[in-house]
């Protein structure tokens, strides 16, 4: 800490802190800024943060401050005003932020900015939460002396890509968007073009502005120059109600704010107008991925299942909830304990608890996860990243290993934050059977003028566990650096692995962490990109992939499929689902699973109800009700509670909060996780939200809670023991066939993403990626339509040639209109002449 003097008062601030931040945090002094952003390097462009700056004079001989007549340190003031954003605080720094000189200069900068600004606030999406507007009100001259009628006339509708529009007139050339892409994301696809007053933002990429994080640029834009295709001209910020929520799409559990409004187009009901990041420095800081931002349209999709449906012969017919509960209770009673549940990753803890209670009441513990590919959640509970972990704290001396996961596609927020950990000096190792985006960063030696360190490991498909288990002998240098790191985080996925392979990998990773002492403390331990927003919740509630495999092999009399889509995901679904006497589906959409259902029951989406998820870092987080229900849909837990009531098990709880209260009392992991606990907030730094004049935005402010991180057993003091790793059989292709490697794409054709029409141009056509030699052998050219045969099934996709390992065909899931394998599978590929593709 160093002592500085701001406007005559002494403050203790962290040494080396940025002056704008220091003044804000220590003195509550809002030095106005446009280009400066606390998450990025200062550039000193806008000149708005100018202050008077002085240093105490130091006697060269005695090294003591020189004192004036009054015994005060003599201050040598700099002749010119200085930009605060480019200053790091040093001892004896004196700052004046409120003098006439400073106020005049700020006023002048505003006046300069407004000479080219269109002042179209009445039609601007940013109006109402615009830093330029706010700062003009606070510091502006109140009028302009530039009285020419030819304000800058430029293009107001420049699509930088499919998702982001640029209004060239409004841009004040602060470069926040350019720097965000360059510094934070590491995809420098935005740039300046031309010079002087013609300076404009352009995109370098083809297709335009093509990253998974592009929406964040609209948040940090201090004017209305960048807007999203989703929200532009959609509503005024002051009409919006901010509802705290959690991204339902992946394991990051990004904190979001659903900006809702009573909308004419929705018959006067509250609907989501946009999704904004909500600051949680532990989870997503102030960023969200474009999927989080634009993937909310399913909540109001016309295709949603709206009424409880009952099978009548070949069709499903609507019925009443009362009828459903009575009939289901009858079926369940008849089945006795031959009942099982399969739940998907996007289901809430409250739903899972009721499902578990229902099954338990019937004497069944057959609770399975969907998809049944990711093992080792139990190890995340034991040696996961320690309580208090913040990926933001990883830096010099620390290390990260990402193995068997394409984080850019699976959990983009983690990829963003781990890339930044590497920027701060962490050693990043990426191990996979194929090239992934994160690998690009791991191979770089230098970024933005700073050295970065990393390494990559390539292995044969399915050998992730082998590599992890034998890391010390196979890659001694890398293993040594990882083991010797101050903090070590391992992110272990399941790409290219069977369930046994995934379990072995997780155990091997846990063993590595345990033996190198990187468990039971913050910023150390294991993470897994479990599918869905509540992969860890499934574990804590007793749902396992092993159970699912057992259920698939031994179909029960009654199967409840809760927010899971085996019919969509599993090419063999027909074989085992059709053996189940009574399938009860709880789903958002009628899908290929409801095809087998006796009862197809509509559930509410995350936006229509409240609930909790546990993210991949085991943080229990609460989301709130944002909009009214679609049709007769109910929260899944209420549906199950209705069944339980009909069975005579228990009276339904009155609210999700009451369910969580019971969970927190009965499940040790959730102790201290009542809704009240989860809603707690604390002051966060950097201070970007609230009523601030300068960073802007009305959504950042976290009023919904920071969540509670569940302690690992290692955190709790239990000494974890290294366990044997049973190395699995490596999946192999049959002779003359290729090994189909299922992968995840962030943008896909799943039911929850399809309704986000504006992202459609970015969803790839179904494709398979081949090795050049294999393609040559098959006589396949890039762009050819090929038929892939696996088991008894076939699918037609387009071929691409992109350096995949020999003998391996990368076949992303959820792109084609029918199920493709979710485990590595042997298959054949042949070119077909008649393209039968949408």
């Amino acid at each position, binding site marked *: 800490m160093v002592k500085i003097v701001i406007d005559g008062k002494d403050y203790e601030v962290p040494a080396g802190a940025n002056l704008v931040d220091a003044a804000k945090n220590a003195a509550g002094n809002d030095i106005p800024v446009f280009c400066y952003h606390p998450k990025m390097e200062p*550039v000193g462009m806008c*000149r708005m943060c100018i202050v008077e700056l002085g240093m105490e004079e130091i006697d060269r001989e005695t090294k003591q401050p020189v004192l004036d007549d009054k015994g005060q340190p003599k201050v040598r003031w700099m002749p010119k005003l200085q930009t605060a954003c480019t200053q790091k605080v040093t001892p004896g720094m004196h700052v004046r932020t409120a003098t006439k000189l400073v106020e005049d200069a700020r006023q*002048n900068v505003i006046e*300069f900015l407004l000479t080219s600004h269109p002042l179209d606030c009445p039609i601007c999406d940013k109006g109402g939460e615009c830093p330029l507007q706010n700062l003009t009100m606070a510091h502006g001259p109140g009028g302009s002396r530039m009285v020419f009628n030819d304000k800058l006339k430029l293009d107001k509708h420049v699509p930088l890509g499919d998702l982001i529009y640029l209004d060239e007139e409004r841009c*004040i050339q602060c470069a926040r968007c350019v720097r965000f892409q360059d510094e934070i994301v590491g995809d420098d696809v935005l740039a300046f073009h031309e*010079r002087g007053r013609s300076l404009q933002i352009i995109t370098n990429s083809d297709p335009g502005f093509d990253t998974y994080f592009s929406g964040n640029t609209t948040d940090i834009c201090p004017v209305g120059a960048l807007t999203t295709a989703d929200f532009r001209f959609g509503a005024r910020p002051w009409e919006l109600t901010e509802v705290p929520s959690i991204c339902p799409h992946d394991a990051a559990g990004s904190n979001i704010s659903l900006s809702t409004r009573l909308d004419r187009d929705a018959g006067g009901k509250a609907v989501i107008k946009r999704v904004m990041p909500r600051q949680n420095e532990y989870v997503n800081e102030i960023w969200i991925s474009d999927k989080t931002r634009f993937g909310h349209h399913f909540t109001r999709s016309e295709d949603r299942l709206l009424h409880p449906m009952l099978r009548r012969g070949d069709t499903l017919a609507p019925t009443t909830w009362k009828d459903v509960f009575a009939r289901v209770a009858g079926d369940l009673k008849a089945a006795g304990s031959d009942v099982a549940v399969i739940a998907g990753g996007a289901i809430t803890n409250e739903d899972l608890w009721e499902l578990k209670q229902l099954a338990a009441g019937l004497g069944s513990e057959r609770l399975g996860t969907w998809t049944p590919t990711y093992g080792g959640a139990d190890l995340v509970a034991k040696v996961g990243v320690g309580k208090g972990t913040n990926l933001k704290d990883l830096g010099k001396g620390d290390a990260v290993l990402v193995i068997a996961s394409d984080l850019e596609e699976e959990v983009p927020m983690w990829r963003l934050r781990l890339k930044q950990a590497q920027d701060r000096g962490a050693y990043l190792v990426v191990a996979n059977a194929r090239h992934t985006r994160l690998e690009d960063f791991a191979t770089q030696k230098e970024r933005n003028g*700073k050295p970065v360190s990393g390494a990559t490991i390539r292995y044969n498909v399915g050998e992730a566990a082998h590599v992890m288990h034998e890391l010390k002998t196979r890659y001694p240098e890398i293993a040594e650096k990882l083991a010797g790191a101050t903090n070590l985080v391992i992110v272990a996925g399941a790409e290219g692995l069977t369930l046994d392979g995934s379990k072995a990998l997780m155990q091997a990773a846990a063993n590595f962490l345990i033996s190198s002492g990187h468990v039971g403390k913050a910023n150390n331990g294991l993470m897994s990109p479990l599918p869905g927003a509540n992969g860890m919740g499934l574990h804590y509630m007793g749902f396992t992939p092993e159970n699912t495999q057992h259920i698939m092999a031994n179909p029960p009399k009654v199967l409840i499929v809760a927010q899971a889509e085996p019919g969509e995901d599993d090419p063999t679904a027909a074989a085992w689902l059709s053996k189940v006497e009574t399938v009860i589906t709880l789903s958002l959409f009628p899908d290929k699973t409801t095809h087998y259902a006796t009862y197809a029951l509509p559930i509410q989406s995350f936006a229509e109800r409240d609930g909790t998820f546990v993210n991949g870092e085991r943080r229990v987080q609460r989301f709130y009700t944002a909009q009214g229900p679609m049709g007769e849909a109910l929260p899944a837990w209420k549906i199950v509670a209705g069944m339980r009531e009909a069975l005579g098990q228990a009276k339904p709880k009155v609210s999700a909060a009451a369910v969580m209260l019971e969970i927190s009392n009965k499940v040790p992991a959730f102790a201290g996780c009542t809704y009240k606990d989860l809603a707690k907030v604390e002051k966060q730094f950097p201070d970007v939200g609230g009523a601030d004049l300068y960073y802007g935005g009305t959504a950042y402010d976290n009023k919904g809670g920071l969540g509670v991180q569940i302690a690992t057993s290692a955190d709790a003091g239990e000494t974890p023991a290294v366990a044997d790793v049973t190395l699995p059989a490596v999946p192999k292709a049959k002779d003359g066939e290729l090994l189909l490697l299922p992968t995840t794409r962030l943008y896909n054709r799943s039911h929850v993403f399809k309704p986000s029409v504006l992202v459609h141009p970015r969803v790839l056509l179904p494709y398979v990626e081949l090795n050049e030699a294999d393609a040559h052998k098959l006589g396949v050219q890039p762009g050819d339509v090929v038929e892939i045969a696996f088991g008894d099934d076939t699918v037609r996709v387009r071929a691409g040639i992109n350096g995949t390992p020999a003998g391996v065909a990368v076949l992303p899931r959820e792109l084609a209109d029918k199920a493709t394998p979710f485990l590595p599978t042997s298959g054949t590929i042949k070119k077909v002449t008649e393209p039968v593709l949408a």
Partner: protein
Amino acid sequence: MTNPIILLRGQEVPNIHQYDVYVQHGGYQGLKKALGMSPDEVINEVKNSGLRGRGGAGFPAGVKWSFIPKNEPVKYVTVNADESETGTFKDRLIMETNPHQLIEGALICAYAIQAKAVYIYLRGEFWDVAHQLDQCIEDARKDGWVGKNIGGGNFSCEVYTHLGAGAYICGEESALLNSLEGKLGQPRVRPPFPAQKGGGLYGEPTVVNNVETIANVPWIMVNGAAEYKKIGTEQSAGTKLYCVSGHVKKPGVYELPFTATFRELLYDICGGPSVEGRNFKALLPSGGSGPIVHLNDQVLDTRMSYEDTAKIGTIIGSASLIVMDDSVDITWVASKVTKFFKHESCGKCTPCREGTYWLDKVIDRILAGEGRPEDVKLIENVAKNMAGITLCALGEFAANPIIHTIKNFPDDFNQHVAKKAETKPVPAKKLAAAGD
């Protein structure tokens, strides 16, 4: 004493731009001598010579070199040959007529700071000069003066030329470095300064010196710092290339010691006003970026040194003397210079980007006879609001012509707006409304 010729040796020695001729006349002996000294000794020699940067700011070259950290493995020398200041055309002459002296000087500098490479950054229009320099570099390489083990010793250094893409701002050292790195030519935030780790080319400590500065170095090495210091004034050692343009009989580039006065240059050498019957009126001693002065007797009798020009309220800068006789309307000059800076503003910082445009608009209005009496105050105020808060010196330069033309030639402005005031006064109310 006769005027010493250090830089324009092409005037004395025909074809000195050729390697053989240059070597016959003592070429590369300065480098040879430097290689026999320790790097620190070379830096001290340059420091002692009093050589100041010829790009405009006049920063002592040796001191700049001494800022380079010794323990960094990678360092660079960048020669600023972007020569874009209005009325400046001296570096081109050096590079055309005496290119080896530049290359030799750059290598001495490289040795002094132990640089890996020298980059000569030329403005895009100097493509022919660059081609000639490339040839010179190859000729010097044949004799072992460029590349590995220079002069048979342990020091190795490459020399490259690089062409800019036509932006004045790339003469600003940090914008130059950005441009050299392939980035947009915009100045960087300082600190870190180019000489510091993180601030130079590719983040490595870098010396950036003007062509003329570097071209002085071989002479200093051969003849010694003391000899060099004998030339010129107390604080401005050596000779300077003065670029004279405008209303004189014999415009051109002249090499004179800093002791020479404006009168000696403009009358004795350039022959006085170009049109008989007209008198000198004004002088821009440092192109468009320096303060304009009345070309009166006091100025004429001032020595053209850094310290003497400061006394008369201007700078010698890059010594681009633009001479104007009494036929010139200074408002027009202010307009021309403002248009230049408007065109060349990089747009990175607000006051310069918007201010230059605004100034230009108002001056155009004044020149067109549409000016309002308060317009003069307005542009003066706008210019003052720019000065001192822009990111780099260009904003300062852009404010200079307005502030100083109004200060020194108020009548030239007032005559325009006075006309307007007589014919069509603008009601104050209307102005206020427009400003709301």
